[in-house]
């Protein structure tokens, strides 16, 4: 059987779909808002993604958590509807709206049936442009946020990533959790929430992705209908975040049989000429799937973890190369050693041609499969605009990946991977983690 598999493999490599077979239309609404659209009338609904860039990093330090709380309140009453009235109206249209806040963006994902699209758009416009921020709703959602903050304070994974960010970014908004602290959230006023709303949701910094049963003309009108009443201009974003963390290990005591390790160091900018080499390098090092170096060495060979992965964080204001795994308290020290050894090995010796080829085959083959349904396509279209990619990026992306050579990857590995610069935050009761690690 093995010979047949090998034969099939060889025969197929050249036949991999070269690019996503989708046609993107650039749409500018009559009001001047730009959007990317993949039109597909086969299912009678449309998926829309509105990404308002800036996100919770716009919070003033003293009102940390304002954007997060504001985003949570968008579905809690608008115009002449209270929270229940809004929810009932949404149910009655069988539409779905998700309001989410992230470090760099407030993201609104919507799905609307063709049969009642205008009514759904009016409801979404009310949520975005006429939120009521009723005192009762503020208190209710504030209570929920405080409960989330309390949960995060007792979740080892959250403690690990929050501690790492605080050590790396200090007073910059990236240095604290977007939910805020019990103290800052407790002190937020309705005026703080109104200010966060004014700052976060503007026409100037919105990107729009759409996919499904809608024409370009209809989409332009729909966007203006939803966003037209928002203020045009956005306030400035915070400056770049300096990654101020050196190599080492920080242990946070936590009562658990297993330790969570969160680790990393500086990364690489999205517009760096070496970005794609670093992207492929990360795939070999600790990218998704079972075949990365770290998965192979830490899980498959030694059974030290259930899963380990690394990723290039492309946060707008500070790129980083990060990773995470969990190991029993008596094994985590050994696992950290293996990670450092792999880091050092690839920095010094590079990867092999075989590893490079396998990573490129996987990355170029997997990419077209992502364009799977209106909801996912709309999200990708918005994400690409948020990364300031040109509209032909999706067509050319696999060529960029294929153009990466072994020399490129290994040169970038020697520069990017810093085994001595790796910092590990370990949350748990790790055994044998001693100074000098």
């Amino acid at each position, binding site marked *: 059987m093995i010979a047949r598999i090998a034969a099939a*493999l060889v025969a197929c490599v050249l036949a991999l779909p070269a690019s996503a077979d989708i046609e993107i239309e650039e749409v500018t609404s009559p009001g001047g808002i730009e959007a990317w659209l993949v039109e597909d009338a086969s299912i009678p609904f449309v998926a829309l993604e509105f990404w308002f860039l800036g996100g919770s990093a716009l919070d003033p330090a003293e009102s940390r958590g304002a954007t997060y709380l504001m985003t949570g309140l968008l579905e809690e009453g608008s115009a002449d509807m209270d929270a229940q009235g809004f929810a*009932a109206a949404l149910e009655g249209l*069988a539409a779905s709206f998700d309001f989410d806040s992230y470090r760099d963006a407030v993201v609104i994902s919507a799905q609307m049936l063709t049969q009642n699209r205008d009514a759904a758009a009016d409801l979404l416009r009310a949520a975005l442009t006429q939120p009521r921020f009723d005192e009762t709703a503020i208190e209710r959602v504030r209570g*929920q946020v405080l*409960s989330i903050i309390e949960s995060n304070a007792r979740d080892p994974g959250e403690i690990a990533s929050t501690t790492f960010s605080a050590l790396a970014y200090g007073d910059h908004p990236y240095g604290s959790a977007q939910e805020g602290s019990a103290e800052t959230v407790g002190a937020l006023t309705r005026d703080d929430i109104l200010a966060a709303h004014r700052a976060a949701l503007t026409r100037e910094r919105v990107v729009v992705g759409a996919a499904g049963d809608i024409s370009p003309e209809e989409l332009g009108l729909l966007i203006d209908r939803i966003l037209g009443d928002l203020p045009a201009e956005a306030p400035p974003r915070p400056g770049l975040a300096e990654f101020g963390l050196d190599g080492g290990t920080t242990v946070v005591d936590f009562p658990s049989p297993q330790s969570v390790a969160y680790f990393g160091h500086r990364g690489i900018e999205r517009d760096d000429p070496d970005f794609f080499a670093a992207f492929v390098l990360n795939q070999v090092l600790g990218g998704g799937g079972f075949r990365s170096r770290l998965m192979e060495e830490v899980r498959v060979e030694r059974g030290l973890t259930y899963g380990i992965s690394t990723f290039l964080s492309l946060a707008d204001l500070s790129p980083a190369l990060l990773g995470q795994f*969990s190991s029993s308290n008596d094994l985590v020290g050994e696992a950290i050693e293996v990670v450092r050894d792999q880091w050092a090995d690839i920095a010094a010796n590079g990867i092999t041609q075989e590893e490079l080829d396998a990573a490129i085959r996987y990355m*170029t083959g997997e990419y077209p*499969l992502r364009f799977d349904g*209106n909801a996912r396509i709309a999200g990708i279209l918005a994400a690409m605009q948020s990364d300031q990619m040109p509209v032909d990026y999706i067509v050319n992306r696999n060529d960029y990946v294929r153009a990466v050579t072994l020399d490129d990857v290994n040169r970038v590995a020697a520069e990017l991977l810093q085994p001595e610069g790796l910092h590990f935050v370990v949350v748990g009761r790790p055994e044998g983690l001693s100074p000098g690690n």
Partner: protein
Amino acid sequence: MLRRLALALGLTLTPFVAQAAGEVAEFMLDNGMQVVVIEDHRTPAVTHMVWYRTGAADEPPGQSGIAHFVEHLMFKATDDLASGEFSATVEANGGSDNAFTSWDYTGYIQRVAADRLGLMMQMEADRMRDLVFDPVEVATERSVIIEERAQRTDSSPGALFNEQMAAAFYLNHPYGIPIVGWRHEIEALTLENARAFYDTWYHPNNAILIVAGDVTPEEVLTLAQEHYGPIPASDNLPPRMRPTEPPHIADRRIHFEDERVATPYVSIRMLAPVREPGDQAEAAALVYLSELLGGSGQTSLMGRRLQIEEERSLFVGTFYDATSVDPSGFSMVNAPVPGVSLEEAEDDLWRMVETFLEEGIDPGHFARIQFQIEAGEIYEEDDTQGLARSYGMQLTTGLSVADAEAWTEVLAAVTPEDVMAAARRLFDDPSTVTGYLMRPPEPDTEADTTEVSQ
């Protein structure tokens, strides 16, 4: 906001319409392997899945976790493939693969470009009968599974609480045993245990092939006959004879304390019927009941009263799983606001049940839920992978393709009177398990940061 809070509490919110719509093709191979095809030609990709009608509830006594262990070992060597080569080949072809184990089923899934379907079938057919059990691999993988348990269960008080709730709830049925297994039994699982489980259950006449995506039923049938067709059926496939649950005649209570608990809550669980082949009406009525009573945080009775009007709950909701082989549970969960005790939160849940039985159903709310079920069919078409998974779940829990196709119609036919009748049956003096998840009384420590080195 509620969705995020529920996630933080470790509660799973599933869309209440998680069922299949649309036309599917169905075949049976000569060796008894069932084949289901769902066409979607929008993307040149396929999802290829093989589901086995076996899971954690089919394990021999004392070997909890063996079904899940076998699932992990399926990625190791066969007579033709080296250990890890299965996933490596999928990835080299630009695909991704994974697997999952539940009480009622074990499934294997790959997503690849449509022209790789034959290769996936070739490898999946190979490991159906030709897995090689290597002692070193078995030992290492057992460590991985113990780490998985530590990560997913032992590190989460909510997961430990759910495990204790299930163990208390089922007096006799193996749904009370965790899928991943009890730690002490995982540690004792052997190569022989794994091989015996594999040899018992992994046969074509116990498997369902589901292909969804850019293929035609004819293409799938041809490839399936080529790759799966030659595998002989087992003559010794046992029926799924599980210990069955006696009537619950006593109320039981559990109190679970863990210093890592952030938001205490109360959970009440009672036995409820599930969808049966050709008889899904009662389950359909319970789907509505769960939605009306404790679905949306704003519009369900519990959400409206306890979260918004009375401001006594941070999160309140009901959970009902309609699709399983044996009867499952209907659950009510209430996380009170600070200052309201768990005892009061428990009383609040029962007060809402009584209110529901007295006040009945708001016709407007009922109509909105009906419309959402109807619209759900449109949205489901956009998610072919979800549809495929939904079919797998239904077919491995004893339902037929006809049952799956009828489900939306059965849901559409439910009346408010049906829901009230089902509610009265469910809540007519049920025996329950009531669980409190809470923190120990003494004040707890702040996280303590120590610099080990810089």
